């Protein structure tokens, strides 16, 4: 592991150099919010952003992704995109989400479409000095910091960043640009001490939102299966699907064919889908296995907090707060979790 030292006023130069050789994705301003998207100029890239509208992980799992092409002669080809991408400035919660999606899509049978996009991508993380909003629960979830899942990590050190290099890809990038720029000097201080000081400052500004420990959540949640709570949530919910679309760990999708205007060729693509849609669990014969909004809401939360912990050993919620922000009806996971905690006997 190497630690570099990067003065903040040199960041723009670094981004410019990276842009010369890679596709760069990062946060940029969109009205009064931020979006995570392709960066065209170094000036666009913002490292001082709060949660982006859509999460970085969707770079590897885009909506309306072409997966197959079919030609009039019956020939079918699988479509894969593989371009070297740099995700510049990813928050720890989103790094956790990417790690989780990596695991989901690489669990056999693997999803080559995701993995191809992901394969050569370099992830540059940036730690959070302050919480993004009051809708987040990354502090409770422990996802306000990340130990893995990135190639480089930027640590704010006042006038400069400390750049932590953890992978060979990260090393590749850092050394590539340290050759071009002389400001990449190795950091001589005690990095462990720096880190613990940094986290102490975070402890001071980040707030715990849940009334109990996160480790108690799956069990408390299991107990709530028949709770009245879900009917209350269901009554409020407009089944609009926003929570799923903005979630960095929602990966349900629909597959559809699009035929060309010549009616012969075309392609098959997959689109983001939402388990809150009325017909999400409808079968051909018309039976709907989650016809009530309360059931669908419960399914969304249980998938994150019961099923994934049970099947995979991790929670499906990284506490980024996007769903809480997106819900115009005011449904919030923070409230749901706390209600579940208070109900449990």
């Amino acid at each position, binding site marked *: 592991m190497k630690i570099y030292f990067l003065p903040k006023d040199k960041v723009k130069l670094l981004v410019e150099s990276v842009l010369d050789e890679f596709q760069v994705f990062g946060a940029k301003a969109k009205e009064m919010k931020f979006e995570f998207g392709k960066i065209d100029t170094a000036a666009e890239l913002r490292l001082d952003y709060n949660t982006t*509208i859509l999460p970085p992980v969707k770079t590897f799992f885009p909506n309306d992704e072409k997966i197959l092409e079919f030609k009039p002669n019956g020939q079918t080809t699988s479509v894969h995109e593989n371009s070297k991408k740099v995700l510049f400035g990813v928050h720890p919660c989103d790094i956790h989400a990417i790690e989780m999606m990596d695991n989901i899509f690489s669990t056999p049978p693997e999803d080559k479409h995701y993995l191809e996009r992901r394969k050569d991508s370099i992830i540059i993380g940036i730690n959070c000095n302050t919480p993004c909003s009051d809708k987040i629960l990354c502090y409770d979830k422990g996802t306000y910091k990340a130990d893995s899942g990135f190639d480089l990590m930027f640590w704010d050190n006042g006038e400069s960043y400390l750049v932590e290099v953890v992978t060979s890809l990260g090393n590749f990038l850092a050394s590539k640009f340290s050759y071009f720029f002389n400001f990449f000097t190795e950091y001589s201080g005690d990095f462990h001490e720096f880190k613990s000081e940094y986290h102490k400052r975070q402890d001071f500004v980040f707030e715990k939102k849940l009334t109990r420990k996160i480790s108690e959540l799956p069990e408390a949640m299991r107990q709530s299966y028949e709770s009245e709570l879900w009917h209350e949530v269901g009554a409020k919910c407009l*089944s609009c699907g926003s929570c799923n679309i903005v979630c960095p760990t929602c990966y349900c999708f629909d597959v559809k064919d699009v*035929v060309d*205007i010549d009616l012969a060729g075309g392609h098959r693509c997959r689109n983001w889908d939402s388990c809150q849609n009325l017909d999400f669990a409808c079968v051909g014969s018309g039976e709907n296995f989650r016809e009530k909004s309360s059931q669908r809401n419960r399914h969304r939360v249980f998938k994150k907090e019961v099923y994934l912990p049970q099947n995979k050993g991790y929670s499906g919620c990284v506490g980024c707060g996007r769903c809480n922000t997106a819900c115009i009806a005011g449904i919030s996971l923070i409230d749901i979790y706390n209600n579940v905690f208070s109900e449990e006997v």
Partner: protein
Amino acid sequence: MKPKLAMFSFTSCEGCQLQILNLEDELLSILNAVEIVNFREAIDEKAQDYDIAFVEGSITTPEEIEEVKDIRSKAKLVVAIGACACLGGVNAMKNFFPLDFVRNEVYKEKASCFPTLPVQRVGDVIKVDYEMHGCPITKKEFLHVTKSLLLGIPLKQIHYSICTECKTAGNVCLFDKGETCIGAITRGGCDAICPTFGDGCEGCRGFVDEPNFEGMIQVLADRGLTKPEIKNKFTYFNGLDVIETINDKIEEFVK
């Protein structure tokens, strides 16, 4: 034999037909695949023999009732296009006023020679095989529907909301900007064009199946909208669908 396609227009702005003419890149390919036999806005031909009839506009006069019935009897498939045909659309605002008042207001002493009926959807008068929503329809959906009809693919209504598409587009939510919108319970399919261009959804594609009206009213009331404002939002395009059901709910939910 190319399938014969006919376009008909009733009470409307004819924008949906124009949307079809606006498919500049695809128009010539469409002409290769189908024979357009009736399209008053573009061509002289007027045939009585057609397979697929696209019908635009609401039904508002006795003559239109007869004409649309005649179309049904001749066409194998009838597709209602646009908010006017599928929902009543903006035309339905007329139904909130007494008909005599409406006529007198515009035509004064000549009002009596003016036949007009309460606005109806095409589907209220004849059986419709598919409803292509929107004010106007989207070019994308017209292409999708036309290709599907030609290939014999059964058509299904889009089931997800405008919000799904709006979030997918990565938009800043109208509510975050202090605006309101009824995209959460409106049927998707337009790629959330209005919110994308900074304007709230007005519901031109009709409501999703099983819309949560109570929840939506509550959300709007929480944002400070008054009863008439909420009513106006719901009746912009969907007057025929909601005017009775929604009134009581608005009374109940809005202080």
